[in-house]
């Protein structure tokens, strides 16, 4: 049996990769994928704890996260398309109209 810590370390690595990608990437689609990576890193820790404690609630959380992630993907992609149509770029540094 693989120890719990392995899962948690992998989960942490995945989450950190997501954060790092979110912070340094300029392409909005890549940023979006990084968010998915963070969510899945968290999902992994949920299922790992669920298996470890023999408790179902962790797995139920994962389903919720997946549902939310799917909805978010739909909304997020729609926003990306809308942004591309108006700005004709996917570089977030150039999408800065909110700036003072």
């Amino acid at each position, binding site marked *: 049996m693989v120890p719990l810590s392995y899962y948690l370390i992998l989960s942490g690595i995945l989450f950190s990769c997501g954060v790092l990608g*979110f*912070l340094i990437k300029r392409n909005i689609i890549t940023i979006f994928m990084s968010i998915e990576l963070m969510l899945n890193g968290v999902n992994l820790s949920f299922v790992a704890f669920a298996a470890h404690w023999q408790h179902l609630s962790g797995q139920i959380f994962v389903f919720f996260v997946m549902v939310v992630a799917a909805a978010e993907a739909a909304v997020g992609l729609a926003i990306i398309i809308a942004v591309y149509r108006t700005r004709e770029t996917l570089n977030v540094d150039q999408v800065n109209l909110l*700036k003072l």
Partner: protein
Amino acid sequence: MTENLNLWLIPILPLVGAAINGLFGRRFSRQIVSAVAVFFSGAAFALVLRVWSQFSSLTLPHYEFLAHWIRYGGFMVNFEFYLDQLTMLMLLVVTGVGLLIHIYSIGYMWDDPSFPRFFSYLNLFMFFMLTLVLAGNYLQMFIGWEGVGLASYLLIGFWFTKDSAASAGKKAFIVNRIGDFGFLIALFLMIKHFGSLNFSELFDKVGPMPVETVGVGLLTSIGLLLMVGACGKSAQIPLYVWLPDAMEGPTPVSALIHAATMVTAGVYMVSRSHVIFDHAPTALTVVAIIGTLTALFAATIGIAQTDIKKVLAYSTVSQLGYMFMACGVAAYSAGIFHLMTHAFFKGLLFLGAGSVIHAVGGNQDMRYMGGLRRYIPITFWTMTIATLAIAGIFPFAGFFSKDEILWRAFQVNKVYWAIGLFSAFLTAFYMSRLWFMTFLGDFKGAELPAGDHGHGHSGHDEHGHSEPHESPLVMTGPLMILALLSAVGGFIPVEHFLEPVFGHGELAAAGETASAGLETTLKFVSVGVAGVGIFLAWLLYYKRRDLPQKIADGLGSFYQTVAHKYYIDEIYAALFVKPLVEGSTDILWHGVDQGVIDAAVNDSAVGARHASDAARHMQSGNLRSYAGWVAAGGAVVIAYMIWMGVAR
């Protein structure tokens, strides 16, 4: 328990009239407005007459409870009404003279664009004055007291577009406020030491207390503070300065408020509180001294005035001084008697002056009148009666009341009597001077400097410099009624009527020792003195018109001092107003308000702006910097949770 007279209706009726005219008057025609105003003040008068008709069957003092007002622990104040002979007399004077002046005002104010507003204020005044007179406790009296002050302020500043009228209104209000402060502290003392403001309860508690012959005890303090209030409302030294300025108001207002009723509220209040004053001889002495000095002081100023209304104003101050002199020698009923006759003849004098001003097209300067006897005969004859009445010529009303006061003063202290007699001489002199200057000689209206014309009487401008003309019947009618009252008012046995109210205090002071012969002699003396005053006025202002100027030149600076009212206004301005204004400007305005309060607000706003300016760089519009802040925030939260976990 006697019958319920529904006394509350008496003050409420004029209030209804004030509300109707105040709210809807602009949409009514002048006829309806005047009908409403006269109806409601007339209804109050009718109710008073109804009460009067049942008066003899009442057990006095008659007391009516309307509603609870304040209940706080053991302390209780109700809306309640108190009716005794004194109240009855005041009710008759206020509603009777008030009704006449309402009728007169219809004619006087007819051309004024603010006709409904005037009558609304006038009715409002009646409401407050009747509340004051009918009150069953000091707090309710205080409401009326403040309310008449408000009505007076509104009516003095009736032509508020004129700067002097607006300032006069403010001056009256502020000076009255100083007096009200004393009244209020007197009320606090009563609450603290007697736990009640109800007249009957209070006087029952004061009654058995010892008379404070030495030092300043509780009752003396209350008495003196009440007198401060009375000084403000009734224009006594040192707070009389507002009344002459109050002549900026329309003339019927001067007649009703600043001669016949409101300014006598102080006399009424002192008489109503006679139980307190009877136990505080020191306070009474102060009342007598203030009254005597005011009577003399104001009379001397009255001699040198040229504005017809200013002469009457100083005369009012002087006559109020007589009333306080009477109160001060514990001759309350004589004071109230003079109050009543004064309401008749001074109301008449003011209304007559209004008629004169109306006739000559708004001019108030007596130097440009003269010879009006031929043009306005009714006004002339009624004014003649009033002048004789105020001068104290037998058998007109003023003779009886003034001589009663002088007689009672003579018994207490001859100095009061001597000063009062000299003031009576001055009164006869300046009133005859007014009479000669206005009605005899030749009409000098054409000599009036153009710029001095009008005095803001917007309604009278169209009359111009044309021939003086008699006022309509609606104005002369009240004049004639008041003239009748001024002629025969002295025969009303007021003092006998008031005996149950002031009874024991009066008899003790009166002393039955003095002989009737002495009294008659004194009466002849005072009539003689008045005659000398009239003769002197005749000599100076009719026979030898060049003399007054020579005398004025001869007296030099003294005459100037008197003509400038002893520079009292200037002295007050230098002593009180200027330090107050400058202190407020330099310390309170520039120092506290701008330096501390505004600065605190402004500086905190500036600080918030600087902090926000620093923080707004977080909102860069750059998505990745947002993400960085989110990540940093998340890191801080995690670090905190870990640290908490470690700490535990």
